[in-house]
């Protein structure tokens, strides 16, 4: 039977042809007890993208039990090759910072207090206000009587992290409302 290099390595990998320290007469009881006594920690390496600017540096996020514990620049990503700017390097503090918003907060007109709201309420408010603005401000014809069907009182601020496809969907959604003021945010 002919064997390939890979099958050979697999066989060796099974330890069938490999010496062990026991063959050399070493008693590993103490070494094993020592290893067992060590406090071991671990984490998963998850690649993600820095949320700050349009360079989109790739980041390795260390995740343990579903929680982020550390970040570093991804050295294999050709754009940043492991480097991060000051903001990107402080990514973990953005995640763990006490000032980070984790729920929608609402401040009513003329109020000086922020109130926590749930997402259903928040999304409905956004939809309602966009519709109100459109109903009130939609321009069908310009001063020359030409049909323009546009909405100038709503401005769309995008994100540099949207993919081409996501940008296309956002663009079409805004255009369907008649929004003409759209910024991709890549320069901000």
């Amino acid at each position, binding site marked *: 039977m002919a064997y390939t290099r890979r099958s050979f390595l697999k066989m060796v990998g099974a330890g069938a042809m490999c010496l062990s320290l026991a063959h050399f007469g070493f008693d590993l009881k103490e070494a094993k007890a020592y*290893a067992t006594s060590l406090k071991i*920690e671990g984490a998963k390496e998850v690649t993600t993208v820095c949320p700050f600017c349009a360079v989109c540096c790739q980041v390795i996020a260390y995740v343990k039990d579903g929680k982020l514990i550390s970040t570093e620049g991804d050295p294999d990503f050709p754009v940043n090759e492991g480097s991060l700017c000051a903001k990107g390097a402080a990514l973990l503090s953005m995640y763990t910072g006490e000032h980070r918003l984790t729920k929608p907060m609402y401040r009513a007109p003329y109020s000086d207090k922020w109130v926590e709201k749930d997402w259903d309420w928040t999304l409905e408010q956004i939809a309602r206000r966009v519709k109100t603005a459109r109903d009130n401000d939609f321009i069908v014809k310009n001063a020359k009587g030409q049909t323009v069907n546009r909405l100038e009182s709503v401005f769309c601020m995008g994100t540099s992290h949207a993919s081409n496809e996501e940008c296309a969907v956002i663009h079409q959604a805004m255009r369907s409302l008649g929004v003409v003021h759209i910024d991709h945010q890549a320069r901000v």
Partner: protein
Amino acid sequence: MAESRQTVSETLAGIAERRPVLAPVLNAFAPLLEARAALPEKLAPMLEKSGFVLPPWQQERAQQGAPLLAGVSLNGLFPLLRASADALLPLLGRLPGMAEHTEALTAFFDREDMCLRAADTLLTGHDTALAEAAEQSNIPPAVLLFALETVVGPVLRTLAATYDAPWDERPASWMQGFCPVCGSYPSIGYLDKRVFDEKNAFLAGGGGKKHLHCSLCGTEWHFRRGACPSCGWEGSGVMEFLRESGNSRGERIDWCTKCKSYCPVVDLRERDGTPDMDALALGMMHMDIVAAQKGLIPLKPSFWNQF
């Protein structure tokens, strides 16, 4: 790597100081490791005289995953193998339990035909040929394999040292988890240090690129952090690491969540010096024990990671 490395003895002394429980094993293998590390310098002039034609690095072959020495016979390298055996077999014979095999091993490496055929076998992976050679020589196969790797390793290191790491040139042609020169699996890897770039002090040279270190010929090559060198699976969350909490000095094991294989890795950004990688692979035995307890499989089986 620009920075000079610690010697084998410096590396082992550092480990023994931090982990005295490993000292008996480290002390036993130190002379053999030191002699192995010193040999390529002595063998280099012999390689020049041997007339052995070094195979050229071919991008196309590399892209298909064929190591440099795949299909290459080591004919012409017997003087180097003989010199390596002369230097290492006496040290190997002083290891506990090996003295009884010294005579048979010496006779084996005295015979050019047997020696070259076995060395070629190591590269081509014809396991039955190796088992037959062991049987004919009255040497246990595991002992012959250990001796072969010990003796052939420095010769291949001498060969590998003549190349200027074309496998790491961009665009990358070598994407495999096994060695671009001899095809062996790595015994250890390292994450490289930060490099200060005057022109771009804050936005370049972050370090942390992973390099794998071949267990046989010592070649080092760049490998993606997010990929498993064993099964090749690549993606976010595929690789996990384990390390000693608070006192690891960058020593960890990177393991694949798909195939459960692991490779020891040292993060050089967490250390002052750069250790000898072969010595550190042995000195990270405590992490091999941890890995074995967790049911992980070593990428490169070695005598210190079989329990």
